């Protein structure tokens, strides 16, 4: 099995773990952790693509930018989680049902 196939096998596994983590847990913090795993798997694809096409310099440049963006998005998301916890008094995703119709 080539290294490339190995990479993508691992990426698919990681992505599955992330989505499973999101599906199986009720706490919004764990959901965020699941999302983080999914997005880390997505980032690994960029490095793998760069290695395959002998274009690692570009892949690294893309990846560093992506990490910076990721930090900002996660910071905003964590702020939302804290706000939600303060307002609702719990971190249960199934209790977020104030809006429906």
């Amino acid at each position, binding site marked *: 099995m080539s290294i490339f196939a190995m990479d993508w096998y691992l990426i698919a596994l990681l*992505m599955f773990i992330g*989505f499973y983590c999101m599906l199986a847990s009720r706490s*919004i913090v764990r*959901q965020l952790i699941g*999302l983080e795993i*999914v*997005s880390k*798997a*997505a*980032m690994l*694809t*960029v490095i*793998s*693509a*760069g290695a*395959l*096409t002998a*274009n690692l310099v*570009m*892949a690294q440049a*893309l990846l560093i*930018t*992506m990490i910076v*963006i990721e930090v*900002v*998005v996660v910071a*905003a*998301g964590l702020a*939302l*989680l804290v*706000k*939600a916890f303060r*307002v*609702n008094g719990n971190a249960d995703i199934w209790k*977020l049902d*104030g*809006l429906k*119709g």
Partner: protein
Amino acid sequence: MDKGLLAYLLIPLLSAVIIPFAARNRPRLADILANVTLLAGLVNIAWMVLRPSVVADGFADIPGDMLFPLLLVGAIYLVALCVTFFSAWFMEEGQPNRAAYYSLILASVSAMTGVVTTTDFFTLYVFIEVLAVTSFALITTDDSRGGIEGALKYFFLTFPASALIIAGISILLIVLGDLQFETLRIFMASDVPPGPAVFAAALIMLGFLIKAGVVPFHAWTPDAYQGAYAPVSAHLAGIVTKISGVYAIVKLGTLLRFFDGRASALSEMVMFLGLLSIAVGALAALRQKDFKRMLAFSSISQVGYIVLAAGLGTPLAVIGAVFHLFNHATFKTVLFLNSASVEKSAGTTDMEKLGGLEHSMPWTSWTSVIALLSTAGVPPLSGFWSKLLIILALWEAGLRGYAGLALLFSIVTLAYFMVMQRKIFFGRKSQAAESAPEVSAPLLAPAVLMSAVIVALGLLFPYFYTYVKMVAERIIL
């Protein structure tokens, strides 16, 4: 990145940085700075595109690929100006933090301009993420329970969408070697089997379908629109989700050359999802009890028309899609701003408690009528022409079933808007409506301006058609 349009991105960003410092002790200065920035941008664009000498020689001195971004930048500035002008009078003293609010609006305008002017997938991804972060913060502006819940749902659905877009981008990197839009277009026009590139584009497309709130992924849309701070709903529904999701779908559709059938499976899939969201959005809107939530479902349904046309991808359909994108920005902004006026005046947006507002709020009532008739596609107004183009394009391509259903759900649109209008504005006065005065003139001005745009676009359609046709031709060829 198109350098000619960079100023439209940088100037709002500069204002967004200056506002928190300049307006620390004088909150009113934030209103003025934000409005002046956006107004200056809008006047500049109007001068560039609409001055008589440019129109006379057929936009010849505007470079080929700048017309479509210019149209969209114009729409972005127009909606954002209406929203900031409205919020300047809508906000109560001290609540919420004005400087932060206007900074975020201007940052989102700047990110949207980045999205529409970029020429490669990675920059597109960067600006989409910036836009998403500003949207989370804007939705929770007033710290209400609904706002936080809507923002959380938005967050949990857009984050996986970004992961899908990244995965798509890296597969595209393997197939094409770089991420320029032009490379993909040339690749699709060549004879190489397009399989892997189409797969990569499908992943990216899926991410953008989630961000646009097209039907199987629409769970976040109504909650975010309903929960958000009232003027922010207009900003989100009018322009933000259209740029962050729908624009990219239209762009990808033209890059993949849907019209010559090399990516026909993806094209059919996108068209099916478009029709599905037209149907589900319209049927769900029929049974809503809340004004803003009904508008949100209506927005899903209208996005369906754009996605349907983008999936078809023939020149006529792309003209329709671009035009409907612009029209959607105008009529949905009017409706959401009017819902904010109703909320401010009557204190609720629950349709069961409202009624007979026509007598006390005539301006709000009649601008709503114009906007909803345009949404439903009633002849003299702008919405009619864009829907007509989309349905004609479907008929021409031999998809009679799609054309018929699109027409049918256009009538359903009219039905639920008539129900809404009767419950809120016509009929007998309810208790909440007794003590609901008309809002002040500055709050009405944006809605009246947008209604004027709707009527003008509808009546002057033959002139506008040449412009939109040129835009569509230049982005397809």
